[in-house]
């Protein structure tokens, strides 16, 4: 299923995502804020914006790799959430619901950028690339220290930008934003096994690509980075 076409109603989690079948339900503090916002309390909604604007911006920036788009998307996500608050039924965390909207908006933005191509969670994920490790070189103990901040940021940006959007999104939600596997599945409209499979391949592909810069034996890594940075 393409994530950008999915509904933003927080449907109840399926059997794979339902962790609370027999557990007592713990009420998240956001629930009260959402209820107050639904009743017209602007300050309550602003508190929610304050709480999640960083996470939504990071998520949008990781997916789109464009700061201007990420700023626009962050605004759009909260405005959309505000106008659709009645569709939030409390079946998922409010933050997961926001992330779901952010992913949809980000993928739509990528689709607009690529006029002839559809961008979805399924794009390019069926390739076999990166599912089997090929590079077994050890890395230096603190490989990032070999680069200055700007160089390192550029290496990381180029490397993650090279992943298919579907892999990049799963890695961002699971490993950077620390969503659980179940929350990631819910936010993306994927099954738990699909998230696990994409996460494995995303991690392995990133590892493989970063190894070029961070490996212990590659003394020319810095030079390689400079060469590839040239247009």
């Amino acid at each position, binding site marked *: 299923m393409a994530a950008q076409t999915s509904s933003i109603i927080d449907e109840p989690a399926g059997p794979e995502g339902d962790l609370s079948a027999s557990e007592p339900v713990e009420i998240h503090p956001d629930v009260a804020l959402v209820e107050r916002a639904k009743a017209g309390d*602007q300050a309550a*909604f*602003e508190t929610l*914006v*304050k709480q999640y*604007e*960083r996470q939504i*911006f*990071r998520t949008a*920036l*990781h997916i789109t790799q464009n700061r201007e788009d990420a*700023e*626009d998307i*962050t*605004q*759009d996500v*909260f*405005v*959309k959430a*505000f*106008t659709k*608050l009645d569709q939030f039924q409390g079946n998922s965390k409010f933050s997961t619901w926001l992330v779901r909207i952010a992913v949809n908006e980000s993928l739509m933005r990528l689709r607009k950028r690529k006029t002839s191509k559809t961008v979805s969670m399924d794009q390019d994920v069926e390739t076999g690339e990166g599912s*089997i*490790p090929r590079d*077994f*070189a*050890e*890395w230096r103990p603190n*490989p*990032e220290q070999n680069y200055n901040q700007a160089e*390192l*940021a550029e290496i*990381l*940006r180029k490397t*993650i930008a090279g992943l298919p959007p579907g892999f990049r999104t799963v*890695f961002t939600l699971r*490993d*950077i934003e620390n969503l659980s*596997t179940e929350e990631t599945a819910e936010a993306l409209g994927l099954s738990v096994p699909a998230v*696990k*499979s994409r*996460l*494995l391949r995303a*991690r*392995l592909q*990133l*590892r493989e690509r*970063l*190894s070029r810069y*961070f490996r212990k034996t590659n003394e020319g890594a810095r030079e390689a980075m400079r060469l590839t940075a040239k247009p």
Partner: protein
Amino acid sequence: MNCTDFLAKLTDYFDGQIDPDLLAEVKQHLGTCHHCEVVVDTTRKTIDVYRDDKSYELPESLHDRMRAAVMQRCMATGRLPDVELKPGGKMPNPQEFIREETERAKH
């Protein structure tokens, strides 16, 4: 357990979602397979280096502006159903919006 079996369990191993019997097998394999040990170590470093990367943070200077823009756009919608979003941060003027809506209602 061979390397392929190990790889199939790598995500669960990283996420601490592996049952104790299998965990013992995984650890045994890691103790004997240098390649898989390197994969685990470098994959963990991959995750760590991205987690520590601050270049994706919303700049402090943008926080207040972003929130103000969001709230202004929210108020301007008057929470009308399916109100058209205005991408690109072009903030509608709430007074203008209300005036236009009032005028439209009259006709």
